[in-house]
């Protein structure tokens, strides 16, 4: 049975995973020429110059911003920045390279030896080594076609060729597909915080190849590794690794050896398929790019870039928990992207310097709850850029709840109005005539009526049946059409019942 195989192999084999990520930099121009780099909406072959085409006599010039952003990324990943770096030619004949080689970095990358802490709720924090972050150029896009005669051919769009591409290589430090996925989630988050890449896997600006091998727990040596390609989402990375983990374990259990090969993920069939096991080891014949002088990065430059780093996701999450008393899941949701975190902080800031404890948490609760729900339910779904309700207005609503002016239930209706109209909370409360009945005088007649109508329940409570009080509070809420303050109603009911008991 499959389940028993899974259980057994999981204990007999240790999974070893390393990831290689390629992410496009969102610079204005390409890596080595000044053609526009934002090709997503461009017609085919319109962002192309003689250099992109590999014409004789053209010379590449390094994009300064691309270098700076790569160093910025490297510093966020705790990398060392060597003083000297250079570019190399990686030679291979393929129609996606007009020159017949890709300009990349071989033995002197822009950065080396960093790490990232990967956090999974039930597994805790694990430090994953990062071997290098280097800079290279993207290749042309190939479209594979077949015509009516059954003839197969490929079409080349050179627009993508030469777009700055950052390669981020991890150490084989990951031990599960879930951890590999979390590494990618956090890496993408960092790239977006840094503003250097859109890092969108579905749109191809963030791509991942995974290396996976199995070994006996305690073994030092790595098993034969399989490289998996063609995964278009975080979920497919995890699925492909899970599939490969089982495939390799089953093969090893059966006494087979694992072929060192490249396999492609087949999303439809949810399996990996051998791609080119017969091909000999790559022979890229790297050599230094003679057209590009080396890069020298002064220590002061590195420190200036480091000083300008924004607050990174992990630090912001920790600060939100510590400073605002948020739960880890709330802090996690709010800091997933820079925009929600900024919106939340604008709301908190609108409360002034002396923020009463509990209000930021209240704002967070409303943000991840009602606000997120309303944005999601809108057709088409809203974003923080499209909504009319402002951060300070949500803060105002939370203040009214905190002051006891309106109940949580009423606040939901008020907020729905605010969301639709962009009015302040107080204006909506006024307009709808909602307010919580919380004065003793206002509540007293209602409570009297409840006790009269539900004498039996009152009797039960006096007889020691504590749950009866809940029923009476419920009746009070009903009679007040939700406008009573439940805590106060409960208190007043208890006082009234105790009085009459004596």
């Amino acid at each position, binding site marked *: 049975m499959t389940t028993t195989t899974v259980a057994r192999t999981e204990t007999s084999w240790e999974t070893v995973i390393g990831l290689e990520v390629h992410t496009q930099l969102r610079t204005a121009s390409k890596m080595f020429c000044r053609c526009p780099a934002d090709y997503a909406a461009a017609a085919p072959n319109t962002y192309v110059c003689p250099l992109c085409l590999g014409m004789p006599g053209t010379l590449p010039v390094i994009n*300064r911003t691309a270098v700076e952003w790569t160093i910025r990324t490297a510093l966020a990943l705790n990398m060392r920045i060597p003083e000297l770096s250079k570019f190399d030619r990686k030679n291979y004949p393929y129609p996606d390279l007009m020159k017949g080689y890709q300009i990349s970095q071989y033995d002197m990358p822009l950065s080396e030896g960093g790490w990232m802490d990967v956090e999974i709720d039930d597994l805790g924090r694990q430090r994953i080594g990062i071997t290098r972050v280097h800079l290279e150029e993207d290749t042309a896009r190939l479209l594979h076609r077949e015509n009516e005669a059954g003839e197969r051919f490929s079409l080349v769009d050179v627009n993508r060729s030469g777009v700055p591409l950052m390669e981020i290589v991890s150490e084989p430090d990951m031990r599960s597909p879930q951890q590999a996925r979390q590494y990618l989630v956090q890496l993408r988050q960092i790239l977006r915080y840094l503003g250097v890449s859109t890092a969108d896997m579905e749109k191809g600006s963030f791509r991942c190849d995974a290396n996976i091998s199995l070994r006996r727990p305690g073994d030092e040596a790595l098993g034969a590794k399989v490289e998996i390609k063609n995964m278009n989402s975080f979920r497919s990375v995890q699925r492909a690794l899970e599939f490969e983990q089982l495939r390799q374990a089953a093969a090893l259990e059966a006494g087979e050896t694992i072929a060192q090969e490249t396999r492609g993920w087949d999303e439809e069939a949810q399996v990996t398929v051998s791609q080119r096991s017969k091909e000999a080891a790559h022979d890229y014949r790297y050599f230094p790019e003679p057209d590009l*002088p080396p890069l020298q990065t002064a220590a002061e430059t590195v420190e200036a870039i480091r000083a300008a780093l924004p607050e990174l996701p992990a630090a912001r999450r920790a600060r939100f928990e510590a400073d605002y008393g948020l739960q880890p899941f709330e802090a996690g949701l709010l800091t997933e992207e820079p925009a929600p975190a900024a919106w939340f902080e604008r709301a908190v800031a609108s409360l002034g310097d002396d923020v009463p404890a509990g209000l930021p948490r209240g704002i967070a609760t409303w943000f991840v709850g009602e606000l997120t729900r309303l944005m999601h339910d809108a057709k088409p779904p809203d974003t923080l850029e499209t909504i009319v309700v402002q951060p300070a207005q949500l803060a105002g609503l939370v203040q009214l709840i905190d002051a006891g002016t309106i109940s949580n239930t009423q606040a939901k209706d008020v907020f729905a109005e605010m969301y639709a109209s962009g009015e302040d909370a107080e204006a909506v409360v006024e307009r709808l005539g909602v307010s919580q009945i919380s004065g003793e005088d206002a509540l007293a007649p209602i409570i009297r009526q409840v006790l009269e109508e539900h004498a039996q329940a009152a009797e039960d409570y006096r007889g020691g049946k504590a749950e009866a009080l809940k029923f009476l509070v419920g009746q009070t809420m009903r009679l007040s059409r939700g406008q009573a303050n439940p805590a106060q109603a409960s208190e007043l009911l208890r006082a009234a019942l105790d009085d009459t008991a004596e």
Partner: protein
Amino acid sequence: MSDSQASAAETFSADQVRHLATLSRVGMTPQEVEGFRAELASILSHIQALAAVDTEGVPPTANGADLLNVQAEDDARPSLPVEAVLANAPQREADYFRVQAVLDSS
């Protein structure tokens, strides 16, 4: 032929020529392999003359010019018109270069 040329020629094998030809996607007849073997060996032995220079204490470099940090600002400029881009295309289809199928799933 000098001694060093002869030794380089001997160390450059027909297999190496064929390997290079494969990597470059160039077809070669046995006669061409032999011709290139001799020619490449001769080029290599010529370059071998550099080995006579004493480079003790000289750091390696890949660039002849004494330059560092030649970079351009990240300002996008217009590209070529698409007709110019495709002017030399051996085969085109709409506004694409058309090439032989590169992924054979068989």
